[in-house]
């Protein structure tokens, strides 16, 4: 109370003044609440000082005063208060409920007090009852505004949830009051609350003699008016309530008490036959829930009605397409129609499960005895074999199939009844006779296919039966022996059935399968049937051992002989994998043995033979699929593949048989894409990868000869990718093993071996090797490349042996134009350890030293080759000078050096190292040097010096692309690069001013082209958001570069990416302003690009940009209209359809603008 009282009094005055803006009033509330919270002001004092406001006879001031007190209490929810003050406050607010002018404040106050938790002092139960009584007596909810109604419902909800025993005593009064309050409610926000109110109300009065039971009819009458929820509010609305949420809330209210049953079930069943799909869907969902909540006793009498209604829905709404079940159709299956069918089946399943009393399941009996089902069954199961199954009968077929499978899936007894009734008849139609001998099948119609309808139903039944056995927890054989009758039947039939399916599958001619869908359908179900028969769990297997083997043999013979029919082949391989995974999952060692013998061994031997009948791709498919069954299988596959790869590798690289490369490439592909991926997910990657990488390096030692050949190049790229993947996935210690091995092989290269002078380690110090001094064999280049790919994929913490030598070697290769070496160097500098302890490793470089060394080598070696030798170039200016000197000679190392610099720059940029600026400046120097000046001063300059310069400038410009673009090959997440966030933005914002000012100053056109090229790379590779933010500054140059670069065909991709940047700017509000400022140039440039001859995408995008521009302010674009229309109507004649269509759109947009 030391505080001057006036300070908070002013807050009260400000709040009570209703003319102030709401934000300020909220601030006042917060200010006072903060005072109370920090004990600078007691609640008592506050109330005492506010007395006048709380009791005045001026309604508006009283209302504001009470509201203020209530809002303050709302802010003090977590502040402990003593019981006395809570009591007096509750009493106050309770009495104020009668004062309708201040009702809002009273409601908020009550709510704030009722919501208090026990640990901070809560309202007593008797007080809560007083609140409820006063509320019921005084508040007329229906006549209030939305916001107040919502508060009322919240008060009720709070009372019911927190003080159930207090309000329960009010009994009928309460229920009646709530009925009155929620009647005719329309606002969705309030409806969510009222639905919830009914739900908790039912919980408060669970007794059959309770108030809810006596008011059930009235309550349900109020609720039922909302069903089905019809709600068409736009989604963007701030209400933030969807139809689904409302519907869910109403559903919970419906199911809240079984007393609703006599009213709800007839309503739901009636709405089930509504023609509105939404009403159907909702009724099904509600019904499903009600069956579960109302209890069997109440529901059993509705069983017949439920069944007949569900039957109608299922029969009329079953999708006809599911029969295909091929993948391309599965995508768009979620139509309303299908949802209805799905919900109906779920509901049927619930009904079967729940409506089960006294060992007698009424629904099941209805299903089995139903005449409709009987009739449809007779109809569809005889549906012919040919192509002519109408859509309607497909629908019926899937409906009957679904009903049968749901009812047999539900319980063992259901399964028994359905099975006994239908299975023998299906067998009859399929002309399969029961017999105990496995050979007793009828194969009299070997070529004719099976009756599709019966086949489909039969497979559905079997599949659901199998599922039932799998899901039922007890795998004890007693279950079976009880129902011996039908089990015997299944056992008798399964053998012949398998044979019939098998022979049908083998009999189908492949042309038939290729040509029509019915063939495919047949095959799908025949394969599925066999697969189901082979995957019954353990002791439940209905087939004998030889039938099981017969099934495997059938699949295998398709897999090995019928590979020209891709569809069937895939199906059966998939089925085999399923069977294998099943065995693996249930540890069925007995069947596993025969699976191994028949399937795995066969595929393995197939793979090992070099017969050319089966394509290699399929063999690889099959074998890698087999591997996915389990770890044991995969390790076998890995061994096989590795052996094959190494032997082919030997053949290619040692014996020089180049044709083997064609086999080796897909082998490597399969290995890295599938096997390694699997190992990665299953967790044994490290071991496998390390072993294999070491194996490859062992082989590398022995390779001898190489010719340059396209095939070999292809193979080698593959090898490098594989090596990167292998190394990249390994842990640190395995990586260092591989590196050491690789390093030892590297030392054996001819240029590093003892007799070769320049690199021998004793002379390495201070030695500067000119790149063309070393003549490399192909072998050496291979080894260096492979070594580079190891380095690229290393983790930052993995140690490298002899860094100095490596830097030297890689730099040399870089200068020879060896890209992997440049990338490896970039990876090295990117992952370089910053804090190396010099005392521990005296020979180690720091990162700065390493970069210095690389830069010097790159520049110096070039220099020495041009006989301008300088011994040391330690300061920056001199280096710049030497860089300029480079321009004078036409050594091919220059552009190599530029590419190398670009990669190293990228590595540095990504880790956020300062040196990248130096490199960028060097590159800029290349761009800016003027060849003409040099030509004049140097009389001996030959004619092609100019060409060399332009090509050098171009590669310097392209270097910016390298620096900013993402690379698949190195310096990415997979290869453990250090990536600082926002590095592109940083580079963009530091380079842009420099580039822009250089462009402004540049005088010669060739120099400007190069600068624009660099500029174009930078803005198209930088993140769009960064570019758009700078739109005003860069737009003029962007347009200039579009104009400049469009002269050369080679720049077409660059033009396209520039256009994409432009369209990004067009989509942004700030960007639009920039565009409007330059509207003339933008439009005329775009018009020129409409006729860009080299690339369709450029023309299309240019027109799209024009379309977007038609939405700019009318006054600014209207003058361009004739110009645009003229150009676009010419584009109507474009060679490409897409462009023409865009042109029509564009013309439409600009014509209708006036």
């Amino acid at each position, binding site marked *: 109370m030391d505080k001057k009282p006036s300070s908070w009094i002013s807050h009260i005055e400000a709040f009570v003044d209703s003319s102030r803006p709401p934000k300020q009033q909220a601030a006042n509330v917060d200010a006072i609440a903060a005072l109370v919270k920090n004990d600078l002001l007691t609640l008592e004092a506050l109330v005492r000082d506010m007395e006048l406001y709380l009791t005045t006879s001026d309604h508006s001031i009283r209302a504001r005063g009470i509201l203020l007190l209530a809002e303050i209490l709302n802010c003090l929810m977590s502040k402990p208060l003593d019981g006395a003050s809570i009591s007096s406050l509750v009493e106050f607010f309770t009495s104020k409920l009668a004062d309708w002018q201040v009702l809002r404040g009273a409601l908020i106050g009550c709510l704030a007090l009722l919501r208090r938790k026990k640990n901070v002092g809560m309202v007593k139960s008797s007080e809560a009852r007083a609140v409820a009584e006063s509320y019921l007596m005084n508040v007329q909810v229906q006549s209030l505004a939305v916001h107040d109604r919502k508060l009322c419902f919240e008060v009720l909800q709070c009372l019911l949830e927190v003080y159930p025993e207090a309000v329960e005593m009010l009994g009928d009064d309460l229920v009646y009051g709530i009925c009155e309050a929620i009647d005719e409610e329309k606002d969705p926000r309030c409806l969510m609350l009222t639905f919830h109110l009914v739900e908790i109300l039912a919980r408060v009065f669970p007794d059959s003699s309770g108030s809810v039971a006596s008011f059930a009819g009235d309550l349900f009458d109020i609720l039922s008016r909302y069903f089905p929820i019809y709600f068409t509010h736009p989604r963007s609305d701030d209400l933030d309530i969807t139809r689904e949420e409302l519907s869910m809330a109403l559903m919970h209210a419906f199911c809240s008490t079984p007393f609703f049953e006599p009213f709800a079930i007839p309503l739901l069943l009636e709405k089930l036959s509504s023609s509105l799909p939404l009403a159907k869907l909702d009724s099904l969902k509600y019904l499903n829930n009600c069956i579960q909540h109302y209890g069997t006793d109440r529901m059993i009498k509705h069983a017949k009605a439920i069944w007949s209604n569900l039957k109608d829905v299922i029969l009329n709404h079953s999708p006809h397409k599911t029969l295909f079940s091929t993948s391309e159709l599965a995508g768009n299956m979620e139509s309303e129609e299908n949802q209805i069918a799905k919900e109906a089946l779920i509901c049927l399943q619930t009904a079967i499960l729940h409506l089960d009393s006294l060992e007698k399941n009424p629904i099941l009996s209805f299903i089995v005895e139903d005449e409709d089902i009987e009739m449809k069954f007779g109809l569809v199961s005889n549906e012919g074999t040919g192509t002519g199954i109408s859509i309607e009968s497909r629908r019926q077929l899937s409906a009957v199939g679904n009903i049968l499978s749901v009812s047999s899936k539900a319980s063992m007894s259901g399964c028994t009844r359905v099975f006994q009734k239908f299975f023998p008849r299906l067998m009859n139609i399929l002309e399969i006779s029961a017999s105990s001998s496995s050979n007793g099948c009828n194969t009299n119609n070997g070529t004719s296919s099976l009756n599709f309808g019966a086949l489909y139903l039969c497979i559905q039944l079997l599949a659901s039966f199998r599922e039932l056995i799998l899901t039922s927890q007890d795998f004890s054989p007693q279950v079976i022996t009880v129902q011996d009758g039908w089990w015997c039947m299944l056992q008798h039939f399964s053998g012949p059935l398998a044979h019939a399916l098998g022979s049908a599958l083998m009999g189908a001619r492949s042309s038939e399968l290729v040509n029509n869908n019915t063939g495919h359908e047949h095959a799908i179900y025949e394969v599925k049937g066999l697969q189901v028969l082979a995957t019954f769990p353990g002791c439940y297997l209905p087939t004998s051992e030889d039938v099981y083997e017969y099934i495997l043999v059938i699949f295998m013979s398709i897999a090995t002989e019928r590979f020209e029919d891709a569809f069937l082949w895939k199906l059966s391989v998939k089925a085999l994998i399923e069977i294998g995974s099943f065995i693996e999952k249930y540890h069925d060692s007995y069947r596993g043995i025969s699976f191994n013998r028949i399937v795995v061994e066969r595929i393995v031997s197939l793979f090992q033979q070099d017969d050319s009948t089966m394509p290699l791709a399929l063999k690889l498919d099959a074998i890698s699929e087999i591997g996915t069954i389990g770890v044991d299988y995969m390790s076998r596959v890995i061994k096989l593949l590795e052996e094959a790869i190494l032997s082919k590798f030997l053949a290619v690289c040692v014996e020089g048989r180049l044709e083997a490369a064609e086999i080796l490439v897909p082998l490597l592909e399969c290995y890295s894409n599938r096997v390694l991926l699997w190992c990665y997910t299953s967790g044994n990657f490290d071991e496998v990868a390390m072993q294999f990488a070491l194996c490859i390096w062992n082989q590398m030692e022995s390779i001898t000869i190489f010719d340059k050949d396209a095939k070999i190049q292809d193979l080698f790229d593959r090898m490098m990718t594989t090596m990167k993947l292998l190394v990249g996935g390994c842990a640190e210690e395995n990586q260092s093993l591989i590196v050491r091995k690789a390093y030892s092989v590297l030392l054996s290269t001819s240029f590093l071996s003892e007799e070769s002078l320049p690199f021998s380690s004793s002379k390495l110090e201070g030695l500067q090797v000119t790149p063309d001094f070393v003549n490399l064999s192909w072998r050496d280049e291979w080894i260096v490349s492979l070594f580079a790919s190891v380095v690229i994929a290393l983790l930052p913490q993995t140690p490298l042996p002899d860094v100095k030598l490596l830097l030297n070697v890689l730099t040399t290769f870089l200068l020879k134009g060896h890209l992997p070496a440049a990338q490896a160097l970039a990876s090295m500098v990117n992952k370089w350890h910053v804090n190396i302890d010099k005392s521990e490793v005296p020979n180690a470089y720091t990162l700065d030293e390493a970069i210095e060394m690389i830069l010097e080598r790159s520049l110096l070696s070039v220099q020495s080759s041009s006989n301008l030798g300088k011994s040391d170039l330690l300061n920056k200016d001199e280096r710049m000078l030497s860089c300029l000197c480079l321009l004078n000679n036409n050594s091919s190392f220059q552009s190599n050096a530029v590419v190398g610099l670009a990669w190293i720059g990228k590595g540095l940029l990504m880790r956020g190292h300062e040196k990248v600026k130096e490199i960028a400046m060097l590159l800029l120097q290349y761009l800016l040097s003027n060849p003409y000046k040099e030509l004049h001063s140097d009389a001996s300059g030959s004619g092609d010096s100019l060409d060399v310069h332009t090509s050098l400038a171009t590669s310097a410009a392209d270097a910016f692309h390298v620096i900013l673009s993402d690379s698949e090959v190195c310096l990415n997440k997979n290869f453990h690069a250090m990536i600082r966030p926002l590095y592109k933005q940083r580079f963009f914002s530091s380079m842009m001013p420099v580039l822009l000012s250089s462009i402004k100053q540049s005088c010669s056109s060739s120099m400007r082209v190069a600068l624009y090229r660099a500029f174009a790379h930078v803005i198209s590779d930088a993140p769009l958001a960064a570019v758009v933010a700078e739109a005003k500054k860069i737009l003029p140059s962007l347009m200039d570069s579009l104009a400049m670069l469009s002269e050369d065909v080679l720049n077409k991709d660059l033009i396209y990416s520039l256009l994409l940047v432009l369209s990004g700017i067009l989509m942004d509000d700030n960007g639009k302003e920039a565009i409007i400022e330059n509207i003339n140039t933008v439009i005329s440039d775009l018009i020129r690009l409409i006729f860009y001859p080299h690339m*369709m995408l450029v023309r299309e995008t240019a027109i799209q940009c024009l379309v977007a521009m038609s939405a700019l302010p009318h006054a600014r674009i209207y003058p361009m209209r004739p110009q645009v229309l003229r150009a676009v*109507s*010419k584009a*109507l*004649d474009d*060679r*490409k*359809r*897409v462009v*023409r269509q865009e042109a*029509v*759109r564009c*013309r*439409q947009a600009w*014509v*209708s603008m006036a």
Partner: protein
Amino acid sequence: MTLGLINANPVVHAKKERVARAEDSHADNAVDPLDVFDSVRDIRDPEHPYSLEQLSVLSEESITVDEKLGCIQITFTPTVQYCSMATVIGLCLRVKLMQCFPPHCKVDINVTPGSHADEESGEDRTCPTSETILVDSLGAYRASSTG
């Protein structure tokens, strides 16, 4: 003007599925009948809320294109013989094609021989009221195609 509709109960046909063309990135795409059809199939009939395609006034087969001469020929079939809207339909087609194809294309629009009582008069005849209908129909098309 006539009171009531000329053809109160037209036969409505299903829309044909739109094929996404497999674009060959290298070859040129010449204008073909499907192009023309695609641009006019959604024109709304002056009388009914159906498109010309749905009323089978037009089909892909009734369109011929001569790329060399730059000539597009459309033959349409009014739904009834005494269709006074034939002129309007013709005008709709002409305006739509003018919008969608380059100015040098010659567009010929005819009714199918024997399908209309007043075949000679052709589509060049206009009356003031039909222009407003025309604007309506095209406007509706535009709204549906852009929105």
